[in-house]
Protein backbone atom coordinates (compact mmCIF):
# COMPACT_ATOMS: atom_id res chain seq x y z
CA UNK A 1 0.00 0.00 0.00
CA UNK A 2 1.26 3.48 -0.81
CA UNK A 3 0.47 6.36 1.53
CA UNK A 4 -0.51 9.68 0.02
CA UNK A 5 -0.03 12.76 2.22
CA UNK A 6 -2.21 15.83 1.79
CA UNK A 7 -0.28 18.63 0.08
CA UNK A 8 -1.93 21.78 1.42
CA UNK A 9 -0.79 24.18 -1.31
CA UNK A 10 -1.12 27.97 -1.19
CA UNK A 11 -1.82 28.33 -4.92
CA UNK A 12 -4.19 26.06 -6.86
CA UNK A 13 -2.81 23.39 -9.15
CA UNK A 14 -4.92 23.80 -12.28
CA UNK A 15 -2.85 21.21 -14.20
CA UNK A 16 -2.57 23.68 -17.04
CA UNK A 17 -0.11 21.53 -18.98
CA UNK A 18 -3.12 19.30 -19.74
CA UNK A 19 -5.94 21.85 -19.37
CA UNK A 20 -4.52 25.00 -21.03
CA UNK A 21 -8.05 26.48 -21.46
CA UNK A 22 -6.86 28.40 -24.53
CA UNK A 23 -7.09 25.01 -26.33
CA UNK A 24 -9.21 21.92 -25.79
CA UNK A 25 -7.67 19.70 -23.08
CA UNK A 26 -4.54 17.99 -24.31
CA UNK A 27 -4.11 14.23 -24.60
CA UNK A 28 -0.74 13.08 -23.32
CA UNK A 29 0.58 9.54 -23.39
CA UNK A 30 3.16 8.20 -20.98
CA UNK A 31 4.20 5.04 -22.74
CA UNK A 32 3.50 2.46 -25.36
CA UNK A 33 0.34 0.40 -25.77
CA UNK A 34 0.68 -3.38 -25.86
CA UNK A 35 -1.44 -5.79 -27.83
CA UNK A 36 -1.26 -9.55 -27.99
CA UNK A 37 -1.22 -10.75 -31.60
CA UNK A 38 -0.71 -14.45 -32.43
CA UNK A 39 0.63 -14.99 -28.91
CA UNK A 40 3.24 -12.24 -29.20
CA UNK A 41 3.20 -8.81 -27.62
CA UNK A 42 3.34 -6.01 -30.19
CA UNK A 43 3.78 -2.34 -29.34
CA UNK A 44 1.98 0.75 -30.55
CA UNK A 45 3.53 4.12 -29.86
CA UNK A 46 0.61 6.52 -29.36
CA UNK A 47 2.97 9.49 -29.45
CA UNK A 48 3.42 8.81 -33.17
CA UNK A 49 0.26 10.85 -33.76
CA UNK A 50 2.20 13.99 -32.84
CA UNK A 51 4.33 13.62 -35.96
CA UNK A 52 2.20 11.51 -38.30
CA UNK A 53 0.09 13.37 -40.85
CA UNK A 54 -3.23 12.44 -39.27
CA UNK A 55 -6.16 14.19 -40.90
CA UNK A 56 -9.90 14.07 -41.49
CA UNK A 57 -11.77 13.08 -44.62
CA UNK A 58 -15.38 14.00 -45.15
CA UNK A 59 -18.34 11.98 -46.32
CA UNK A 60 -21.11 14.44 -45.43
CA UNK A 61 -22.39 14.42 -49.01
CA UNK A 62 -22.17 10.65 -49.46
CA UNK A 63 -22.80 8.57 -46.33
CA UNK A 64 -24.06 11.64 -44.52
CA UNK A 65 -26.65 12.26 -47.19
CA UNK A 66 -27.83 8.65 -47.26
CA UNK A 67 -29.40 9.17 -43.85
CA UNK A 68 -31.39 12.33 -44.41
CA UNK A 69 -33.36 14.23 -47.00
CA UNK A 70 -31.06 15.29 -49.84
CA UNK A 71 -29.24 18.57 -49.49
CA UNK A 72 -29.94 21.20 -52.11
CA UNK A 73 -27.06 22.05 -54.37
CA UNK A 74 -26.58 25.46 -52.74
CA UNK A 75 -26.47 23.81 -49.30
CA UNK A 76 -23.72 21.46 -50.38
CA UNK A 77 -21.67 24.21 -51.99
CA UNK A 78 -21.96 26.38 -48.89
CA UNK A 79 -21.13 23.46 -46.55
CA UNK A 80 -18.17 22.53 -48.73
CA UNK A 81 -16.87 26.07 -48.45
CA UNK A 82 -17.39 25.99 -44.68
CA UNK A 83 -15.61 22.64 -44.43
CA UNK A 84 -12.66 24.24 -46.15
CA UNK A 85 -12.57 27.06 -43.61
CA UNK A 86 -13.06 24.66 -40.70
CA UNK A 87 -10.17 22.45 -41.78
CA UNK A 88 -7.93 25.39 -42.58
CA UNK A 89 -5.19 25.93 -45.12
CA UNK A 90 -3.12 22.93 -44.02
CA UNK A 91 -5.83 20.47 -45.03
CA UNK A 92 -6.74 19.05 -41.66
CA UNK A 93 -9.98 18.24 -43.49
CA UNK A 94 -8.20 16.79 -46.49
CA UNK A 95 -10.85 15.33 -48.77
CA UNK A 96 -14.59 15.23 -49.31
CA UNK A 97 -16.37 12.56 -51.31
CA UNK A 98 -19.37 13.06 -53.55
CA UNK A 99 -21.86 10.90 -55.38
CA UNK A 100 -21.54 11.07 -59.14
CA UNK A 101 -24.77 9.46 -60.30
CA UNK A 102 -27.27 12.26 -60.86
CA UNK A 103 -27.09 15.47 -62.84
CA UNK A 104 -27.47 17.34 -59.56
CA UNK A 105 -24.50 15.39 -58.08
CA UNK A 106 -22.31 16.41 -60.96
CA UNK A 107 -23.45 20.04 -61.04
CA UNK A 108 -22.71 20.27 -57.33
CA UNK A 109 -19.18 19.03 -57.85
CA UNK A 110 -18.69 21.57 -60.62
CA UNK A 111 -19.95 24.38 -58.37
CA UNK A 112 -17.67 23.30 -55.52
CA UNK A 113 -14.69 23.10 -57.84
CA UNK A 114 -15.48 26.57 -59.14
CA UNK A 115 -14.68 27.87 -55.63
CA UNK A 116 -11.09 26.90 -56.39
CA UNK A 117 -10.36 25.76 -52.84
CA UNK A 118 -7.29 23.65 -52.17
CA UNK A 119 -8.96 21.63 -49.41
CA UNK A 120 -10.93 19.50 -49.09
CA UNK A 121 -9.97 17.74 -52.30
CA UNK A 122 -13.02 16.41 -54.10
CA UNK A 123 -13.19 12.66 -54.61
CA UNK A 124 -15.91 10.41 -55.94
CA UNK A 125 -17.77 7.35 -54.78
CA UNK A 126 -18.88 4.55 -57.07
CA UNK A 127 -19.90 0.92 -56.91
CA UNK A 128 -17.20 -1.57 -57.87
CA UNK A 129 -18.42 -1.54 -61.40
CA UNK A 130 -16.23 -0.84 -64.41
CA UNK A 131 -19.03 1.06 -66.10
CA UNK A 132 -19.13 3.57 -63.29
CA UNK A 133 -15.62 4.68 -64.21
CA UNK A 134 -17.03 6.60 -67.10
CA UNK A 135 -18.55 8.98 -64.53
CA UNK A 136 -15.27 9.41 -62.66
CA UNK A 137 -13.39 10.08 -65.86
CA UNK A 138 -16.02 12.50 -67.13
CA UNK A 139 -15.79 14.48 -63.92
CA UNK A 140 -12.00 14.52 -64.13
CA UNK A 141 -11.57 13.34 -60.53
CA UNK A 142 -8.17 12.14 -59.37
CA UNK A 143 -9.49 9.69 -56.78
CA UNK A 144 -12.61 7.70 -56.19
CA UNK A 145 -13.89 5.44 -53.50
CA UNK A 146 -15.38 2.15 -54.61
CA UNK A 147 -17.53 -0.30 -52.77
CA UNK A 148 -15.58 -3.52 -52.15
CA UNK A 149 -17.58 -5.41 -49.57
CA UNK A 150 -15.45 -7.74 -47.53
CA UNK A 151 -17.63 -9.87 -45.26
CA UNK A 152 -19.37 -13.06 -46.28
CA UNK A 153 -22.61 -11.41 -45.17
CA UNK A 154 -22.24 -9.11 -48.15
CA UNK A 155 -20.40 -11.34 -50.60
CA UNK A 156 -22.67 -14.36 -50.21
CA UNK A 157 -26.02 -12.84 -49.32
CA UNK A 158 -26.02 -9.42 -51.01
CA UNK A 159 -23.83 -10.01 -54.03
CA UNK A 160 -24.59 -13.73 -54.49
CA UNK A 161 -20.93 -14.33 -55.26
CA UNK A 162 -18.14 -16.53 -54.07
CA UNK A 163 -15.16 -14.86 -52.46
CA UNK A 164 -13.12 -15.55 -55.60
CA UNK A 165 -15.74 -13.96 -57.84
CA UNK A 166 -15.98 -10.92 -55.59
CA UNK A 167 -12.22 -10.46 -55.41
CA UNK A 168 -11.85 -10.86 -59.14
CA UNK A 169 -14.51 -8.22 -59.77
CA UNK A 170 -12.93 -5.79 -57.34
CA UNK A 171 -9.45 -6.27 -58.79
CA UNK A 172 -10.72 -5.70 -62.32
CA UNK A 173 -12.25 -2.39 -61.26
CA UNK A 174 -9.02 -1.36 -59.55
CA UNK A 175 -7.11 -2.16 -62.73
CA UNK A 176 -9.64 -0.12 -64.68
CA UNK A 177 -9.03 2.77 -62.30
CA UNK A 178 -5.30 2.58 -62.87
CA UNK A 179 -5.86 2.51 -66.61
CA UNK A 180 -8.06 5.59 -66.32
CA UNK A 181 -5.44 7.38 -64.25
CA UNK A 182 -7.74 7.50 -61.24
CA UNK A 183 -6.52 6.58 -57.79
CA UNK A 184 -8.74 3.85 -56.34
CA UNK A 185 -9.80 3.88 -52.71
CA UNK A 186 -11.23 0.50 -51.80
CA UNK A 187 -13.99 0.69 -49.22
CA UNK A 188 -13.78 -2.64 -47.45
CA UNK A 189 -17.37 -2.72 -46.29
CA UNK A 190 -18.22 -4.69 -43.16
CA UNK A 191 -14.57 -5.39 -42.41
CA UNK A 192 -15.19 -5.81 -38.68
CA UNK A 193 -17.44 -8.79 -39.47
CA UNK A 194 -15.26 -10.27 -42.20
CA UNK A 195 -12.99 -13.30 -42.39
CA UNK A 196 -9.79 -11.31 -42.24
CA UNK A 197 -7.28 -14.04 -42.92
CA UNK A 198 -9.56 -15.80 -45.41
CA UNK A 199 -10.55 -12.82 -47.54
CA UNK A 200 -9.52 -9.35 -46.41
CA UNK A 201 -5.77 -9.81 -46.13
CA UNK A 202 -5.42 -11.87 -49.33
CA UNK A 203 -7.44 -9.23 -51.16
CA UNK A 204 -5.35 -6.37 -49.74
CA UNK A 205 -2.15 -8.19 -50.64
CA UNK A 206 -3.43 -8.59 -54.20
CA UNK A 207 -4.18 -4.87 -54.27
CA UNK A 208 -0.62 -4.19 -53.17
CA UNK A 209 0.71 -6.32 -55.98
CA UNK A 210 -1.35 -4.31 -58.46
CA UNK A 211 -0.12 -1.09 -56.84
CA UNK A 212 3.48 -2.04 -57.57
CA UNK A 213 2.91 -0.97 -61.18
CA UNK A 214 1.80 2.59 -60.34
CA UNK A 215 3.54 5.60 -58.80
CA UNK A 216 3.20 6.30 -55.09
CA UNK A 217 0.45 8.88 -55.50
CA UNK A 218 -1.70 6.35 -57.37
CA UNK A 219 -1.37 3.36 -55.06
CA UNK A 220 -4.59 1.91 -53.68
CA UNK A 221 -5.95 3.42 -50.48
CA UNK A 222 -7.78 1.16 -48.08
CA UNK A 223 -10.82 2.40 -46.21
CA UNK A 224 -11.71 0.23 -43.22
CA UNK A 225 -15.49 0.39 -43.12
CA UNK A 226 -16.93 -0.56 -39.76
CA UNK A 227 -20.28 -0.70 -41.47
CA UNK A 228 -22.33 -1.93 -38.50
CA UNK A 229 -20.27 -0.33 -35.74
CA UNK A 230 -18.92 -3.66 -34.50
CA UNK A 231 -15.32 -2.43 -34.15
CA UNK A 232 -13.74 -2.29 -30.71
CA UNK A 233 -10.77 -0.22 -29.64
CA UNK A 234 -10.05 -2.10 -26.40
CA UNK A 235 -6.70 -3.88 -26.18
CA UNK A 236 -6.66 -7.64 -26.71
CA UNK A 237 -10.10 -7.98 -28.23
CA UNK A 238 -10.59 -10.93 -30.55
CA UNK A 239 -10.64 -10.45 -34.32
CA UNK A 240 -12.43 -9.40 -36.46
CA UNK A 241 -13.72 -6.73 -34.05
CA UNK A 242 -10.28 -5.60 -32.88
CA UNK A 243 -9.27 -2.25 -34.35
CA UNK A 244 -5.64 -2.42 -33.15
CA UNK A 245 -5.11 -5.91 -34.59
CA UNK A 246 -6.70 -4.95 -37.90
CA UNK A 247 -4.53 -1.88 -38.35
CA UNK A 248 -1.39 -3.66 -37.18
CA UNK A 249 -1.85 -6.54 -39.63
CA UNK A 250 -2.61 -4.21 -42.53
CA UNK A 251 0.48 -2.18 -41.80
CA UNK A 252 2.94 -4.90 -40.82
CA UNK A 253 1.70 -7.99 -42.62
CA UNK A 254 0.18 -6.43 -45.73
CA UNK A 255 2.60 -3.50 -45.96
CA UNK A 256 0.06 -0.68 -46.21
CA UNK A 257 1.52 2.55 -44.81
CA UNK A 258 -0.61 4.77 -42.56
CA UNK A 259 -1.11 7.40 -45.26
CA UNK A 260 -3.07 4.86 -47.31
CA UNK A 261 -5.29 3.66 -44.48
CA UNK A 262 -8.56 5.28 -43.48
CA UNK A 263 -11.17 4.53 -40.79
CA UNK A 264 -14.89 4.85 -41.50
CA UNK A 265 -17.14 4.06 -38.55
CA UNK A 266 -20.78 3.86 -37.56
CA UNK A 267 -22.39 4.59 -34.24
CA UNK A 268 -24.59 1.54 -33.71
CA UNK A 269 -22.96 0.82 -30.33
CA UNK A 270 -22.19 4.41 -29.25
CA UNK A 271 -18.53 3.88 -30.11
CA UNK A 272 -18.26 5.89 -33.26
CA UNK A 273 -15.97 8.67 -32.08
CA UNK A 274 -13.71 6.71 -29.78
CA UNK A 275 -13.23 4.01 -32.40
CA UNK A 276 -12.30 6.58 -35.02
CA UNK A 277 -9.95 8.47 -32.68
CA UNK A 278 -8.39 5.18 -31.57
CA UNK A 279 -7.71 4.25 -35.17
CA UNK A 280 -5.49 7.33 -35.35
CA UNK A 281 -3.70 6.17 -32.23
CA UNK A 282 -3.30 2.62 -33.53
CA UNK A 283 -1.59 3.80 -36.66
CA UNK A 284 -3.67 5.04 -39.57
CA UNK A 285 -3.83 8.60 -40.82
CA UNK A 286 -7.28 9.31 -42.22
CA UNK A 287 -10.43 9.53 -40.13
CA UNK A 288 -13.55 9.62 -42.26
CA UNK A 289 -16.52 11.48 -40.79
CA UNK A 290 -19.54 13.64 -41.45
CA UNK A 291 -20.75 16.97 -40.19
CA UNK A 292 -22.64 16.45 -36.96
CA UNK A 293 -22.34 12.69 -37.41
CA UNK A 294 -25.19 12.36 -39.90
CA UNK A 295 -24.89 9.01 -41.63
CA UNK A 296 -26.61 5.69 -42.21
CA UNK A 297 -28.76 4.66 -39.24
CA UNK A 298 -26.91 5.88 -36.15
CA UNK A 299 -24.40 7.91 -38.09
CA UNK A 300 -20.69 8.32 -38.75
CA UNK A 301 -17.84 9.85 -36.75
CA UNK A 302 -18.78 13.49 -36.23
CA UNK A 303 -16.24 15.80 -37.82
CA UNK A 304 -16.56 18.25 -34.93
CA UNK A 305 -15.49 15.56 -32.49
CA UNK A 306 -12.65 14.54 -34.75
CA UNK A 307 -11.32 18.06 -35.16
CA UNK A 308 -11.35 18.71 -31.41
CA UNK A 309 -9.59 15.35 -30.96
CA UNK A 310 -7.05 16.41 -33.57
CA UNK A 311 -6.22 19.58 -31.64
CA UNK A 312 -6.10 17.68 -28.34
CA UNK A 313 -3.69 15.12 -29.77
CA UNK A 314 -1.49 17.57 -31.68
CA UNK A 315 -1.59 20.30 -29.03
CA UNK A 316 -1.95 22.81 -31.82
CA UNK A 317 -4.72 24.23 -33.99
CA UNK A 318 -2.64 23.84 -37.16
CA UNK A 319 -4.79 26.35 -38.97
CA UNK A 320 -8.22 24.93 -38.15
CA UNK A 321 -10.99 27.44 -37.52
CA UNK A 322 -13.10 25.87 -34.80
CA UNK A 323 -15.58 28.75 -34.76
CA UNK A 324 -16.81 27.50 -38.15
CA UNK A 325 -18.48 24.66 -36.25
CA UNK A 326 -20.75 27.23 -34.65
CA UNK A 327 -21.54 28.83 -38.01
CA UNK A 328 -22.23 25.44 -39.56
CA UNK A 329 -24.64 24.47 -36.80
CA UNK A 330 -26.47 27.78 -37.31
CA UNK A 331 -26.56 27.13 -41.05
CA UNK A 332 -28.11 23.69 -40.48
CA UNK A 333 -30.70 25.18 -38.19
CA UNK A 334 -31.59 28.39 -40.00
CA UNK A 335 -31.07 27.53 -43.66
CA UNK A 336 -31.25 23.76 -44.04
CA UNK A 337 -33.88 23.44 -41.32
CA UNK A 338 -32.20 20.69 -39.31
CA UNK A 339 -32.22 21.18 -35.57
CA UNK A 340 -29.32 19.60 -33.69
CA UNK A 341 -30.01 18.13 -30.24
CA UNK A 342 -29.59 20.81 -27.56
CA UNK A 343 -27.05 18.71 -25.65
CA UNK A 344 -24.95 17.87 -28.72
CA UNK A 345 -21.26 18.44 -27.82
CA UNK A 346 -19.54 21.62 -29.05
CA UNK A 347 -22.48 22.96 -31.09
CA UNK A 348 -25.80 22.08 -29.40
CA UNK A 349 -27.76 25.00 -28.01
CA UNK A 350 -27.03 23.91 -24.45
CA UNK A 351 -23.60 22.30 -24.76
CA UNK A 352 -22.06 24.90 -22.46
CA UNK A 353 -25.24 26.06 -20.77
CA UNK A 354 -25.61 25.32 -17.09
CA UNK A 355 -28.88 25.20 -15.20
CA UNK A 356 -27.97 24.39 -11.62
CA UNK A 357 -27.56 27.44 -9.38
CA UNK A 358 -24.45 26.00 -7.76
CA UNK A 359 -22.85 25.58 -11.21
CA UNK A 360 -23.91 29.09 -12.19
CA UNK A 361 -22.29 30.36 -9.01
CA UNK A 362 -19.06 28.59 -9.89
CA UNK A 363 -19.20 29.81 -13.48
CA UNK A 364 -19.74 33.39 -12.31
CA UNK A 365 -16.78 33.26 -9.95
CA UNK A 366 -14.32 31.50 -12.28
CA UNK A 367 -15.49 30.52 -15.76
CA UNK A 368 -13.08 27.60 -16.06
CA UNK A 369 -14.82 25.71 -13.26
CA UNK A 370 -17.73 24.76 -15.50
CA UNK A 371 -16.55 25.46 -19.04
CA UNK A 372 -14.59 22.80 -20.94
CA UNK A 373 -12.22 25.24 -22.67
CA UNK A 374 -12.31 28.83 -23.85
CA UNK A 375 -15.46 28.36 -25.89
CA UNK A 376 -15.80 32.12 -26.34
CA UNK A 377 -12.47 32.42 -28.10
CA UNK A 378 -12.42 29.10 -29.95
CA UNK A 379 -16.08 28.57 -30.81
CA UNK A 380 -17.55 32.03 -30.41
CA UNK A 381 -19.86 30.48 -27.79
CA UNK A 382 -19.58 32.03 -24.31
CA UNK A 383 -20.73 29.76 -21.49
CA UNK A 384 -24.34 30.43 -20.64
CA UNK A 385 -26.88 29.74 -17.99
CA UNK A 386 -30.49 28.71 -18.56
CA UNK A 387 -32.77 30.32 -16.03
CA UNK A 388 -35.16 28.12 -14.08
CA UNK A 389 -36.15 27.87 -10.41
CA UNK A 390 -32.87 25.94 -9.90
CA UNK A 391 -30.44 28.44 -11.40
CA UNK A 392 -30.45 30.85 -8.45
CA UNK A 393 -29.55 34.51 -8.25
CA UNK A 394 -26.03 33.59 -9.40
CA UNK A 395 -27.56 32.25 -12.60
CA UNK A 396 -29.56 35.41 -13.19
CA UNK A 397 -26.48 37.56 -12.49
CA UNK A 398 -24.48 35.52 -14.99
CA UNK A 399 -27.21 35.81 -17.61
CA UNK A 400 -27.66 39.56 -17.11
CA UNK A 401 -23.93 40.28 -17.17
CA UNK A 402 -23.50 38.30 -20.36
CA UNK A 403 -26.56 39.95 -21.89
CA UNK A 404 -25.25 43.41 -21.05
CA UNK A 405 -21.70 42.46 -22.03
CA UNK A 406 -20.28 43.46 -18.65
CA UNK A 407 -16.91 42.12 -17.60
CA UNK A 408 -14.59 42.34 -14.57
CA UNK A 409 -15.46 45.00 -12.02
CA UNK A 410 -18.26 46.32 -14.24
CA UNK A 411 -20.30 43.16 -13.66
CA UNK A 412 -23.48 43.58 -11.68
CA UNK A 413 -23.72 41.92 -8.27
CA UNK A 414 -26.44 39.51 -7.20
CA UNK A 415 -28.04 42.40 -5.28
CA UNK A 416 -28.57 44.34 -8.51
CA UNK A 417 -30.48 41.45 -10.08
CA UNK A 418 -32.43 40.40 -6.98
CA UNK A 419 -35.70 41.82 -8.30
CA UNK A 420 -35.36 39.83 -11.51
CA UNK A 421 -34.65 36.69 -9.51
CA UNK A 422 -37.74 37.36 -7.38
CA UNK A 423 -39.79 37.59 -10.58
CA UNK A 424 -38.26 34.29 -11.76
CA UNK A 425 -39.09 32.52 -8.51
CA UNK A 426 -42.64 33.90 -8.53
CA UNK A 427 -43.10 32.38 -11.98
CA UNK A 428 -42.53 28.92 -10.51
CA UNK A 429 -43.85 29.30 -6.96
CA UNK A 430 -46.90 31.44 -7.65
CA UNK A 431 -47.67 30.83 -11.32
CA UNK A 432 -46.87 27.11 -11.36
CA UNK A 433 -44.61 27.42 -14.37
CA UNK A 434 -42.84 24.26 -15.63
CA UNK A 435 -40.65 25.59 -18.47
CA UNK A 436 -37.36 27.53 -18.56
CA UNK A 437 -37.48 31.30 -18.65
CA UNK A 438 -36.78 32.49 -22.17
CA UNK A 439 -34.16 35.02 -23.15
CA UNK A 440 -36.90 37.34 -24.37
CA UNK A 441 -38.65 37.28 -21.00
CA UNK A 442 -35.40 38.01 -19.20
CA UNK A 443 -34.69 40.89 -21.53
CA UNK A 444 -38.08 42.36 -20.60
CA UNK A 445 -37.19 42.05 -16.92
CA UNK A 446 -33.89 43.80 -17.50
CA UNK A 447 -35.77 46.65 -19.18
CA UNK A 448 -38.11 46.90 -16.18
CA UNK A 449 -35.68 46.50 -13.30
CA UNK A 450 -32.39 47.74 -14.72
CA UNK A 451 -33.48 50.40 -17.24
CA UNK A 452 -30.34 52.51 -16.80
CA UNK A 453 -28.13 49.52 -17.70
CA UNK A 454 -30.40 48.41 -20.54
CA UNK A 455 -30.39 51.89 -22.04
CA UNK A 456 -26.62 52.19 -21.67
CA UNK A 457 -25.52 48.78 -22.92
CA UNK A 458 -28.30 47.34 -25.08
CA UNK A 459 -30.42 50.09 -26.56
CA UNK A 460 -29.57 50.43 -30.23
Amino acid at each position, binding site marked *: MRTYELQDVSTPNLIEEIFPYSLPPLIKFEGKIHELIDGKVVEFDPNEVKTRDIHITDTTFRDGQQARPPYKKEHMVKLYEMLSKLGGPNGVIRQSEFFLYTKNDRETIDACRALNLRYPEITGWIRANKGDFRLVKEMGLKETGMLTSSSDYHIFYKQNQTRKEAMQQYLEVVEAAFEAGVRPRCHLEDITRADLAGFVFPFVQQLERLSEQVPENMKVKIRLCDTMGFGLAYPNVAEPRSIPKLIWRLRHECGIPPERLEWHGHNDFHKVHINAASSWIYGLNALNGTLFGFGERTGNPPIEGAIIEYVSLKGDLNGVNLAMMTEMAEYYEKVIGTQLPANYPFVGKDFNTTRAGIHAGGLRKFEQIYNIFDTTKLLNRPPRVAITDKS*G*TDGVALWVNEFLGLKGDDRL*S*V*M*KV*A*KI*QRWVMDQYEKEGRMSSITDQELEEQVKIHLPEYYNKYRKN
Partner: protein
Amino acid sequence: MTREEVAARVINVTAREFGMKPSEIKESDQFTTDLGADSLKSIELVAAYEEEFGISVKEEEALKVQTVGGAIDFFFHLLK
Protein backbone atom coordinates in the same frame (compact mmCIF):
# COMPACT_ATOMS: atom_id res chain seq x y z
CA MET B 1 -23.83 59.40 10.61
CA THR B 2 -23.95 58.01 14.16
CA ARG B 3 -24.38 54.32 14.91
CA GLU B 4 -27.87 55.07 16.29
CA GLU B 5 -28.91 56.74 13.03
CA VAL B 6 -27.59 53.81 11.02
CA ALA B 7 -29.31 51.36 13.39
CA ALA B 8 -32.68 53.09 13.01
CA ARG B 9 -32.49 52.96 9.22
CA VAL B 10 -31.27 49.33 9.13
CA ILE B 11 -34.06 48.27 11.47
CA ASN B 12 -36.68 50.15 9.45
CA VAL B 13 -35.53 48.52 6.22
CA THR B 14 -35.33 45.09 7.87
CA ALA B 15 -38.83 45.44 9.30
CA ARG B 16 -40.23 46.52 5.93
CA GLU B 17 -38.57 43.63 4.09
CA PHE B 18 -39.94 41.03 6.54
CA GLY B 19 -43.37 42.68 6.96
CA MET B 20 -42.80 43.40 10.65
CA LYS B 21 -42.89 46.43 12.94
CA PRO B 22 -39.52 48.05 13.73
CA SER B 23 -40.13 47.44 17.42
CA GLU B 24 -40.21 43.70 16.74
CA ILE B 25 -36.65 43.69 15.33
CA LYS B 26 -33.75 43.12 17.76
CA GLU B 27 -30.06 43.63 17.03
CA SER B 28 -29.41 40.06 18.10
CA ASP B 29 -31.86 38.65 15.53
CA GLN B 30 -30.28 36.21 13.08
CA PHE B 31 -31.54 36.82 9.53
CA THR B 32 -31.97 33.14 8.74
CA THR B 33 -32.99 31.47 12.00
CA ASP B 34 -34.92 34.33 13.70
CA LEU B 35 -36.32 36.22 10.72
CA GLY B 36 -36.61 33.31 8.29
CA ALA B 37 -34.56 34.69 5.41
CA ASP B 38 -33.71 32.28 2.59
CA SER B 39 -30.82 32.95 0.23
CA LEU B 40 -32.86 35.18 -2.11
CA LYS B 41 -34.35 37.12 0.81
CA SER B 42 -30.83 37.72 2.17
CA ILE B 43 -29.79 39.16 -1.19
CA GLU B 44 -32.95 41.29 -1.40
CA LEU B 45 -32.21 42.59 2.08
CA VAL B 46 -28.68 43.66 1.14
CA ALA B 47 -30.11 45.25 -2.02
CA ALA B 48 -32.60 47.17 0.14
CA TYR B 49 -29.81 48.38 2.46
CA GLU B 50 -27.82 49.49 -0.60
CA GLU B 51 -30.82 51.47 -1.82
CA GLU B 52 -31.42 52.98 1.62
CA PHE B 53 -27.85 54.21 1.99
CA GLY B 54 -27.21 54.89 -1.69
CA ILE B 55 -24.09 52.75 -1.86
CA SER B 56 -22.93 49.48 -3.44
CA VAL B 57 -21.31 46.84 -1.28
CA LYS B 58 -19.16 43.81 -2.04
CA GLU B 59 -21.52 40.88 -2.12
CA GLU B 60 -19.14 38.33 -0.53
CA GLU B 61 -18.61 40.59 2.49
CA ALA B 62 -22.22 41.73 2.80
CA LEU B 63 -23.63 38.21 2.60
CA LYS B 64 -21.37 37.06 5.44
CA VAL B 65 -23.26 39.27 7.89
CA GLN B 66 -25.52 37.08 10.03
CA THR B 67 -27.41 39.43 12.39
CA VAL B 68 -29.21 42.77 12.40
CA GLY B 69 -26.54 44.15 14.74
CA GLY B 70 -23.88 42.87 12.35
CA ALA B 71 -25.59 44.72 9.50
CA ILE B 72 -25.71 47.93 11.55
CA ASP B 73 -21.97 47.66 12.29
CA PHE B 74 -21.20 46.78 8.66
CA PHE B 75 -22.92 49.86 7.26
CA PHE B 76 -21.79 52.12 10.13
CA HIS B 77 -18.15 51.29 9.28
CA LEU B 78 -18.75 51.67 5.55
CA LEU B 79 -20.38 55.09 6.00
CA LYS B 80 -17.85 56.47 8.48
